[in-house]
């Protein structure tokens, strides 16, 4: 079993490398490497708060992580595994033990060698929940880490966690130098020491972070990489400057004036304008989706007809057009289409007439008033308003209360009262699955995940659904998982505990000097396969 898996993974990896190599014959075409002129400036929409990978909280924090650091394994643009600091991984049949074989001959930028001790230091820190780092909750499943030999570590889990390998492929699993970990939190936040393709040149808070190419990066070295280098020598940039520019219009202007080469987070109007004037543009679906949660423990929503009526009354395509300029994608399942195990469901027909009828049958022919909470962000409010207008057509009065994020965290995420007593009947909010795994995205609708324990904001409880979620989450066999999530998606779709609205898209625009810009599956900028064009 585990051998089969590693064979599959290696084949996938080879394909990935062939793809990024841009041609066959890997090391035959060695060039001089990256030109001295290959300096680019990237515009992000917010300032990064920390350079500590395990403490990242926002998308902006993610941007430099995989430039400075490498993880054990990475997810490629199509969710294939790319082995980085580990050569491969063996899993025990019970799915509790992961043995990683590490690459040899790599060292951190401070000279500390990369070995099993270094890996253990990182994994231990990630597992120790008392550190209070923002992103470490996903490693809560790690029980202990053993050093088997100099280049082998074994991770033992508390329970089977299907997405475990995925969690090791995200930014928060970047491997830091053990000396850096010893120096403590402040050093980790400011002076990154990793094995990455770039090293920190300078960070000026509020202005920029400048990274320089590490020309001796192990990923260029065919020997360390076992024959084929991770990247050819001409990939990458001599230096990358990341500037936070919160105003979108300023990002556009800087791109146009040539002061920057790449800008992320653009609205449809600006994206179109840039595309028309010859800029390269990338749009990619991420792993986030917005939902219209219906509290299934409320009497009114115990009747499935009411839930169905609501799902039929919302014209999601129109929502996409009016509020998001058709930039997002209509949900075809509770999972985003970029996720593994995604299965397209029968689209719910927009039919206010039928919805009205269903409501009448359920005994709400004379109208119905519902309380709805949402976050008070501008586009969120527009979204809420749109849904409000739509539901009005079938006689539902939606009373929307846009709330402060902190208030929602307290009263929804941390709600500990009786599920049927929530002040809200419905709740509109987006959810992003950091691990890009079905277990995180749909598994949170299980009964065990009622707030405050998890993200089941619909308080949905269905034994059949729970069963499949349990099977899916506790298995490491893709076939089993495929079946489980296929069933779970179907049940969810028919039962409508929440209306899946739109999955988010990430956008970037760049000038003619950059080639190969992409986004990772979770939405972060993915520049690994990018290079400079004179």
């Amino acid at each position, binding site marked *: 079993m585990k051998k089969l898996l590693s064979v599959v993974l290696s084949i996938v990896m080879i394909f990935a490398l062939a793809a990024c190599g841009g041609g066959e014959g890997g090391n035959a075409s060695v060039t001089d490497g990256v030109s001295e002129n290959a300096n680019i400036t990237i515009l992000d929409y917010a300032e990064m708060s*920390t350079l500590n990978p395990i403490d990242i*909280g926002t998308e902006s924090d993610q941007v430099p992580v995989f430039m400075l650091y490498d993880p054990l394994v990475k997810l490629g643009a199509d969710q294939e595994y790319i082995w980085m600091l580990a050569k491969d991984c063996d899993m025990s049949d019970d799915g509790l033990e992961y043995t990683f074989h590490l690459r040899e001959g790599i060292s951190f930028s401070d000279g500390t060698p990369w070995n099993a001790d270094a890996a253990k230091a990182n994994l231990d820190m990630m597992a120790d929940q008392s550190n209070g780092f*923002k992103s470490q909750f996903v490693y809560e499943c790690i029980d202990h880490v053993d050093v088997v030999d100099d280049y082998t570590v074994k991770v033992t889990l508390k329970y089977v966690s299907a997405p475990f390998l995925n969690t090791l492929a995200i930014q928060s699993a970047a491997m830091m130098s053990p000396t850096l970990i010893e120096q403590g939190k402040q050093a980790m936040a400011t002076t990154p020491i990793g094995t990455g393709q770039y090293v920190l040149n300078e960070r000026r808070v509020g202005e920029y972070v400048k990274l320089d190419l590490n020309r001796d990066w192990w990923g260029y070295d065919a020997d360390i990489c076992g024959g084929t280098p991770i990247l050819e020598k001409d990939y990458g940039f001599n230096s990358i400057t990341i500037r936070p520019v919160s105003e979108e219009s*300023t990002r556009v202007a800087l791109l146009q004036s040539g002061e920057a080469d790449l800008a992320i987070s653009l609205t449809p109007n600006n994206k179109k304008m840039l595309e028309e004037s010859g800029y390269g543009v990338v749009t990619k679906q991420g792993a986030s989706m917005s939902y219209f949660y219906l509290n299934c423990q409320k009497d009114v929503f115990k009747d499935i007809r009411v839930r169905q009526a609501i799902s039929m009354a919302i014209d999601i395509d129109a929502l996409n057009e009016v509020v998001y300029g058709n930039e997002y994608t209509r949900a075809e399942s509770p999972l985003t289409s970029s996720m593994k195990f995604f299965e397209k469901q029968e689209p719910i027909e927009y039919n206010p007439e039928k919805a009205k009828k269903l409501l009448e049958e359920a005994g709400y022919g004379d109208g119905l008033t519902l309380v709805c909470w949402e976050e008070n962000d501008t586009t969120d409010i527009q979204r809420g308003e749109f849904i409000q207008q739509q539901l009005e057509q079938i006689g539902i009065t939606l009373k929307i209360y846009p709330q402060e994020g*902190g208030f929602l965290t307290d009263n929804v995420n941390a709600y500990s009262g009786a599920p049927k007593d929530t002040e809200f009947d419905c709740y509109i909010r987006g959810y992003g699955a950091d691990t890009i795994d079905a277990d995180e995205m749909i598994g949170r609708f299980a009964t065990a995940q009622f707030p405050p324990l998890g993200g089941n904001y619909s308080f949905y409880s269905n034994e059949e659904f729970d069963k499949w979620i349990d099977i899916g989450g506790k298995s490491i066999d893709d076939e089993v998982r495929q079946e489980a999530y296929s069933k779970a998606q179907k049940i969810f779709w028919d039962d409508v505990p929440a209306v899946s609205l739109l999955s988010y898209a990430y956008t970037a625009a760049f000038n003619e000097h950059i080639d190969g810009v992409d986004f990772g599956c979770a939405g972060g900028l993915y520049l690994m396969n990018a290079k400079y064009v004179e």
Partner: protein
Amino acid sequence: MTKYILKRVGGIIVTMFLVSIFVFMIIRLIPGEPARLMLGDKATPEMIETITKQYGLDKSYFEQYMIWMKGVLHGDFGNSQRTGMPVMYEIGLRYGKTVRLALYAITWSVIAGTIIGIWSGTRAGKWQDYTGITVSVLGQAVPDFWLGMMAIMILCVKLHLFPIIPDGTFRGMVLPAFTLGAYMMSTVARFMRSSVIEALKEDYTRTARAKGLKERTVIYKHVLRNSVIPVITIIGMQLGVMLGGAVLVESVFGYSGIGLLLLDSIKYRDYTTLQMLILIISFHVVAINLLVDLLYAVVNPEIRYD
């Protein structure tokens, strides 16, 4: 005199004490469990507990206040909840920038305000006067953020005269400082205009003129000399307005001073930084007002100190 100074300084201490309580309460009144706010939606109970302990959030408000105040008095402002770095460091990185911006703004506005004021005061009723009045009245009515936007639109984008984002050079500072100083320029101009008009009516001006002195000399000698203290008072009084304006101007220009940090700390719920920023800003206002008052007392010893 010494008694007056002591009394004023004592008053400041009481005021700052009240301010610190306000600031402290403001932060505690913000809805939401602080630890959970910091860690985000997906935090586990264990992580929340750690953070709660680490920041002493489980103690009573009184204890928390005492710990905070003790830290502040010892120069330890705590760590930013957003970046984990000492607040002192975070603020220190940006403080100088805002001071620089404010100094540029004050400098140009006082110089320009004085020139415009004298110009229109000495030509009262003529077109020059009306131009001056219009400029100064408009300066007080135009929102600084809008002025900044218009300046960027015309001068940066259309004419390419200045960089879009202040890049640390003098050229980059021109527009933010211009925008921030517009209001103070108007105030100074209006004041100078009325001083000049008044001075021209006074007896000594007539006498001086009779003696054959040029009007210009008279104005420079008397008006300017007498205006130094009132103008300093205006600067002191307007400093608060300017600090508020700095938030807007820094936001418009993407200038990373403490104004932008204030907005960021609200956006990312970084309350340690937020409370320290508000405390520091109000301390500046109070301290500058005190300085102005003391200066006044030194220059005009005849005023009664009661």
